[in-house]
């Protein structure tokens, strides 16, 4: 024992040390982070965010310097608070509150006192800054808008939220991130990559040079400049036309799928969401639950498409071989089916073949065609699914997959849907139960962009490119397969002839004969959609939505457009006029029919929108009761 005691003690302590070292260095990971917090300061170098140009190279969005007033509480010296608050336009209470907050956060680290000074505030404060020890001005970069339009397309920049910080390691609290529109979808292209510098600190928090001679440091990569497909002029014009109305316009270039304009009304000035008024303005927009300016109707609003949808049934009928262009169907102010039930129509000559059926938008004609499609197959289920498959090939009933941060699938009913509704097989259902599909009412829902895409596919006679908003990145055209690969519909090209002719006839002799655009051959289709609203638990019918789709010129389509005006009554009244003006503006650069332009600009539907909230009984559709045209 006497000889080995010291041996034992030495070896034991060696083992204890090894175990303790193993615990500290290997098992417990917390120390690495602690040592980094201690000794390494990360400094980020934010690159300039990419600019945004329109399709004609017009600058839409750039950057502007902005100035934040920061404070390091422990460096504060007594100062003239009255003067300071006077310059910045804040109350002494507000100042005291933000200084308290800064002190609680950290007495040694900078905190934000007042964000985003105006240039004049900055200039004035800069001169007096030496009097306010502890404060300093931090320069940052904000978005600068060269347009008052297209806020829904452009999106906006906001401080990144905690969830994004947790999910995406690129962002740290306080970073800015693009939201919605281009800023949101192409955030990674626009933002570039921030540079990182690791600075080693000593125990007094002083910099003692780059960490590991800067081997981990990275340089910032500038954000990419984007050219978008939007025509800024057309976008602006469309927004002007939609003033005091609600709805959406989507204009596409059929040959490329490029979105020429994407208008939602009501809208807001993109500059409202920049600078110190940002949160105030955002709250205002957010809280407007009736006008809902943050809701992009062009992408999100799912309306029944109404009569423009008839073109689909014509095409499917031809493709399925159940109807010939010469087949005529008669109409006596409506279609009679079952036990004396009638689906109404308006006054026009009868019987009609396909071209005139489209031109006059005859309900009876399309109900006949629709029933033939569904009844071609042994069961209505099979027929319905065939029919739905054709529609889906036009991008209806599902997300379009465009490069816009938001969208809706719309709805194309399937056999499953009706099986569920009618509790099949306990009860059977037949084509007659679904005839509102023939005229684009009932179960079918589309968004304006889907409708515009459908129109582009007709203009192209059978194919389309997925609508998209990005044209070039730093001058290089996009190569994304999704937007550069043609998508073919299930309808053979030869069947489009009669349908296009019918849509052309709409302008010549049909429901839009009064809307002709001088010098331009337009093909179009009016639409009217009944709609209902629930206010205070009461379901009310409102004035019909005014719908119009068109493309022009007929033989070499340059623009396809879908217009929705909420409660605009009938297709030709608002939507048709707006579509015509937009087409003329785009193709000619100016509008010749000033009277029509003025009529639209002066008209307001605000009275119509207030009706359901008035609490009193009201008349719709100018006191009449037509549901379609």
């Amino acid at each position, binding site marked *: *024992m*006497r*000889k080995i*005691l*010291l*041996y034992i*003690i*030495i*070896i034991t*302590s*060696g083992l*204890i*040390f*090894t175990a*303790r*070292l*193993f615990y*500290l*260095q*290997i098992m*417990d990971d*917390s*120390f*690495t982070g*602690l*040592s*980094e917090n*201690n*000794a*390494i300061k990360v400094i980020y170098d934010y690159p300039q965010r990419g600019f945004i140009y329109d399709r004609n190279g017009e600058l839409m969005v750039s950057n502007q310097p902005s100035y934040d007033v920061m404070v390091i509480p422990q460096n504060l010296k007594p100062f003239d608070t009255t003067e300071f608050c006077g310059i910045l336009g804040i109350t002494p209470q507000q100042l005291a509150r933000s200084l308290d907050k800064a002190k609680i956060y950290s007495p040694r680290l900078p905190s934000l006192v007042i964000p985003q000074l105006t240039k004049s505030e900055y200039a004035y404060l800069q001169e007096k800054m030496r009097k306010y020890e502890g404060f300093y001005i931090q320069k940052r970069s904000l978005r600068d808008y060269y347009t008052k339009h297209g806020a829904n397309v452009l999106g906006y920049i906001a401080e990144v939220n905690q969830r994004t910080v947790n999910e995406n390691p690129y962002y740290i609290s306080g970073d800015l991130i693009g939201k919605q529109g281009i800023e949101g979808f192409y955030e990674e292209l626009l933002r570039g990559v921030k540079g990182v510098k690791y600075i*080693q*600190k*000593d*125990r007094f928090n002083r910099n*003692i*040079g780059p*960490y*590991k001679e800067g081997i981990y440091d990275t340089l910032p990569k500038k954000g990419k400049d984007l050219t978008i497909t939007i025509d800024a002029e057309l976008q602006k014009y469309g927004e002007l036309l939609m003033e005091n109305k609600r709805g959406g316009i989507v204009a596409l270039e059929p040959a490329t799928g490029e979105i020429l304009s994407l208008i939602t009304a009501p809208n807001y000035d993109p500059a409202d969401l920049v600078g110190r008024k940002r949160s105030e303005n955002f709250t205002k927009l957010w809280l407007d639950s009736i006008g809902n300016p943050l809701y992009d109707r062009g992408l999100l609003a799912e309306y029944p498409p109404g009569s423009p949808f008839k073109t689909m049934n014509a095409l499917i009928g031809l493709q399925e071989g159940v109807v010939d262009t010469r087949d005529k169907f008669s109409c006596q102010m409506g279609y009679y089916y079952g036990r004396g039930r009638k689906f109404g129509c308006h006054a026009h000559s009868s019987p009609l073949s396909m071209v005139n059926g489209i031109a006059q938008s005859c309900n009876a004609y399309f109900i006949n065609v629709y029933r033939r499609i569904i009844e071609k197959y042994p069961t209505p289920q099979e027929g319905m699914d065939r029919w739905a498959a054709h529609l889906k090939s036009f991008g209806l009933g599902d997300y379009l997959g465009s490069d816009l941060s938001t969208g809706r699938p719309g709805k194309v009913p399937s056999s499953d849907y009706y099986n569920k509704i009618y509790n099949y097989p306990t009860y059977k259902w037949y084509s007659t139960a679904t005839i509102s599909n023939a005229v684009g009412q009932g179960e079918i829902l589309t968004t304006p962009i889907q409708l515009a895409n459908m129109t582009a596919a007709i203009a192209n006679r059978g194919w389309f490119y997925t609508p998209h908003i990005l044209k070039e990145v730093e001058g290089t055209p996009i190569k994304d397969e999704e937007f550069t690969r043609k998508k073919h519909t299930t309808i053979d090209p030869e069947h489009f002839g009669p349908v296009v002719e019918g849509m052309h006839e709409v302008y010549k002799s049909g429901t839009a004969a009064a809307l002709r655009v001088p010098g331009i051959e337009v093909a179009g289709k009016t639409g009217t959609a009944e709609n209902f609203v629930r206010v205070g638990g009461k379901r009310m019918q409102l004035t019909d939505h005014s719908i119009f789709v068109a493309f022009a010129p007929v033989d070499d389509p340059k623009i396809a457009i879908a217009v929705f005006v909420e409660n605009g009554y009938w297709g030709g009244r608002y939507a048709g006029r707006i579509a015509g003006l937009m087409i003329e503006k785009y193709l000619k650069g100016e509008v010749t029919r000033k009277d029509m332009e003025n009529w639209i600009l002066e008209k307001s539907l605000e009275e119509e929108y207030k009706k359901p909230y008035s609490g009193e009984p009201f008349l719709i559709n100018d006191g009449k009761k037509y549901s379609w045209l």
Partner: protein
Amino acid sequence: MMARSTAGFDWLSILIYFLLVAIGWVNIYSASLDDAATSLIALDEIYGKQMLWILLSVFLIVILLSLEAKFYERFSSVIYIISLISIVGLFFFGKTINGATSWYAIGGFTIQPAEFAKVATALALSKFISDIQTNIKNLGDQFKAFIIIALPALIILPQPDAGSAMVYAAFFFPLYREGLSGVYLIAAVCGILVFLLTLIFSPIWVSIGAAVVILLFYFFRKKKRPGALAYLSILIMAVALSFSVDYIFENIFEQRHRDRFNIVLGQEVDNRGIGYNTNQSEIAIGSGSWFGKGWTEGTQTKGGFVPEQHTDYIFSTVGEEWGFVGSTVVVFLFIFLMLRIIYLAERQKSQFHRVYGYSVAGILFVHFFVNIGMVIGIFPTVGIPLPFFSYGGSSLWGFTILLFIFIKLDAERMSFGRTS
């Protein structure tokens, strides 16, 4: 002559010594490195001075090894007395650094005599015990040995340098090896146990616990003697110790002393104040992971977060920059050196040699255990250097002399057969 003497040297110990000194310097270099390193021997830099001490200690080694082994035995008393005078002199001529009056200032340099007093005490104790008339089982001789050890310790203690004084506990090991009763060991262990338990629990609970344990021993004892009275007196001592520890701890200790214990016992941690050293040291070591951050790449080291890092906390640099692998290599080298010394001590024919060898191993062990234990947070903060490693000429030379006297003694073990 030369050939005969070099042949007997334990080259293994010498090799480990130089390894430790070299690794130590490499880490001092990193811990004291400023932005611009000019030359390895820049005398205005800490690492440059240490390099000078190292070079000078080589000359010291040559001198130590060329003196005859007999010299150390013969002059041990003289050396001991000179050493005592040198530490007493501190009270009159000493220079105060970091609150402790432990230095003589000579020119631009300072010298800490306590580092050499250990060697002198080891020599004197070895000489006394190996005296033919001394019997360590004899209470009177035990008391004389205690005086030899306690005298320098008691002089150093009020300077104040509790750490250096504490090292004298190391002389228990040679005494025990030479026949000191194990009762002292048991008593010491029990005392420490009571002490620590009192800090964690209240003295009342410790007293109750002690009573239960002693009662169990009493009822299950195999021999009739000692009687109940002996057990009772042990219990009374334990209770008295517990209460007095509590009293001393709460009323005589200053807060900083209390805190040092509380940190290790995990009672309260104030990482900005008293706990700062230990906390930063643990962060430095803990962030080293398997292989460390690399030489001169330690962020804790470079940022100067660990105070006294080139002296008492030098091991935290090893931990941060060389990781688990580097740290265990250093621990292993120390363990190996100490075990080697014990092994060498055991093969000595002269009792003087053996006692001295055990003293060397014991002193190295106490330094090793207290220093690294403190740096890795399992021992209270006590400022003593890590042998061969920590910056400081006195410390390096003190340990060099301590070790190489033994290497010289070992080399000549055969020629001193007669005294054994």
